[in-house]
């Protein structure tokens, strides 16, 4: 029982990170119909930026801020400089470009930082606090829940309450009509990528301390897992991304806890396979509203 409770909280904590990362993937998918295969590599770049800034300044939070700002910048740069050229092309082109970016980014990081696993600090303790003799959640888990929740609330407010959010939604749903109404659709695309990359950067900061350490490939498995979560929830649904992320986090936690952590990557892929075979539209697949 103790183990189950512990695994549940651990699963939810990891799940929150997958939810955030999946949300970033869904943001880009809804805006551009592209799956950003470079999302994980981009998050590693920003994590390394945080690492360097923290090492130079001695402040974790300076590094944290650097990661988020770096995410905004990196997302905008990649959209403007690379993805813009494949946005109108067949989907496979965007996937190929994404994978190419992964090779490029990971290669460059390896050249600059080397290939050893570096310890990556967390701002608060990662030891589980015991409640009534039972180890439950760690301060770090609470930090993860808090930041992911805050990000989701902020994004929801942005999209539903602001003019910028209205422009982004209109540009995603009806790009041609939006242009006729004076919306700079290209600018909203760039902003969407910037935001998604910042969210991915946050996810990276939240998950890397819990793994083997900082390494150019540290986010590879996270990407696959979050992508699975996004597919489970339905790529079009932000709510689905969140639910999918939490669900996948829980499933993997139980697999890792009861069967063994070596099996976890297999479990992720098996889950993805099952979802794609049984319900490819995802749990939250709705009827897409017709253009009227």
């Amino acid at each position: 029982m103790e183990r189950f409770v512990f695994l549940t909280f651990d699963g939810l904590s990891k799940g929150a990170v997958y939810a955030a990362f999946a949300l970033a993937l869904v943001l880009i998918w809804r805006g551009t119909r592209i799956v950003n295969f470079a999302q994980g590599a981009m998050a590693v770049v920003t994590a390394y930026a945080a690492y360097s800034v923290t090492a130079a300044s001695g402040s974790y939070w300076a590094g944290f801020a650097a990661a988020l700002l770096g995410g905004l910048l990196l997302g905008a740069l990649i959209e403007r400089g690379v993805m813009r050229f494949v946005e109108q092309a067949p989907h496979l082109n965007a996937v190929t470009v994404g994978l190419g970016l992964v090779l490029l980014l990971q290669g460059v990081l390896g050249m600059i930082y080397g290939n050893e696993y570096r310890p990556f600090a967390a701002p608060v303790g990662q030891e589980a606090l015991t409640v009534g003799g039972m180890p439950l959640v760690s301060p770090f888990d609470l930090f993860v829940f808090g930041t992911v929740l805050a990000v989701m609330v902020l994004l929801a407010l942005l999209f539903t309450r602001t003019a910028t959010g209205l422009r982004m939604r209109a540009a995603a749903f009806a790009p041609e009509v939006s242009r006729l109404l004076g919306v700079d659709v290209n600018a909203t695309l760039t902003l969407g990528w910037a935001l998604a990359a910042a969210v991915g950067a946050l996810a990276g900061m939240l998950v890397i301390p819990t793994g083997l350490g900082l390494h150019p490939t540290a986010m590879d498995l996270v990407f696959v897992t979050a992508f699975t979560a996004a597919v489970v929830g339905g790529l079009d649904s932000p709510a689905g991304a969140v639910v999918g992320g939490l669900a996948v986090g829980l499933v993997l936690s139980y697999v890792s806890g009861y069967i063994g952590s070596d099996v976890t990557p297999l479990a992720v892929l098996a889950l993805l396979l099952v979802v794609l075979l049984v319900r490819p539209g995802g749990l939250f697949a709705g009827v897409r509203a017709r253009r009227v």
Partner: protein
Amino acid sequence: MTALLTVDGLVAGYNGVPVLDDVALTVPPASIVAVLGANGAGKTTLLRTVSGLIRPTAGRIVFDGHDLRDVPVERLVRLGIAHVPEGRGVVAELTVEENLRLGGLWRRDRADVRRAIAEVYDLFPPLAARRGHAGHQLSGGERQMLALGRALVARPRLLLLDEPSLGLAPRVTAQIMALLGELRDRTGLAVLLVEQNVRGALSVADRGVVMSLGRVVVATDAASLRADEDLRHAYLGF
């Protein structure tokens, strides 16, 4: 009186297939010019070329002294041109209120945008009653009202309207046409009106332009078009 919109020698098409072949027309201020003709005549292509969605390969488009060929699509509404495309383009996933707000997002004067939206609700009471409803929940007539209302929020001087009567009941079509006439008379709005519903369009238009196979075959005042039976039989089907 100088024309508000002048199109001259326009040649345009898709992927190398020519659709418009030397099209010329003018729209005076505070007038309604109906563009008529069979399917495939190039009427929709004409509007899409004027608004910049299609780049012409030859010819000029001048609006109030501006050469529209240099203007990106996004900036058109700032000049005073609102294009309501074929199929209306109501964003189905957004609410009535959000669609209307979208029409005015580019404007600095937020107070006037709020006034303009209020005016649209006065003009179209069914929209006011359904302001929280999503676009896909509206009827065809309500969607047309929404598309028109959204265009009017921008306070345009020229309205490019593509087949507003499509899929609408005759009574609703008549209301829309009457409204266009009223806007022209009351606010000086100019309209370039593409229509298949010839009777409806000619009932309110000042001038008529008939297109066939990418060319303008007739350009005259609406009264003459209504009266000329041979012309109507040849190009307009009645």
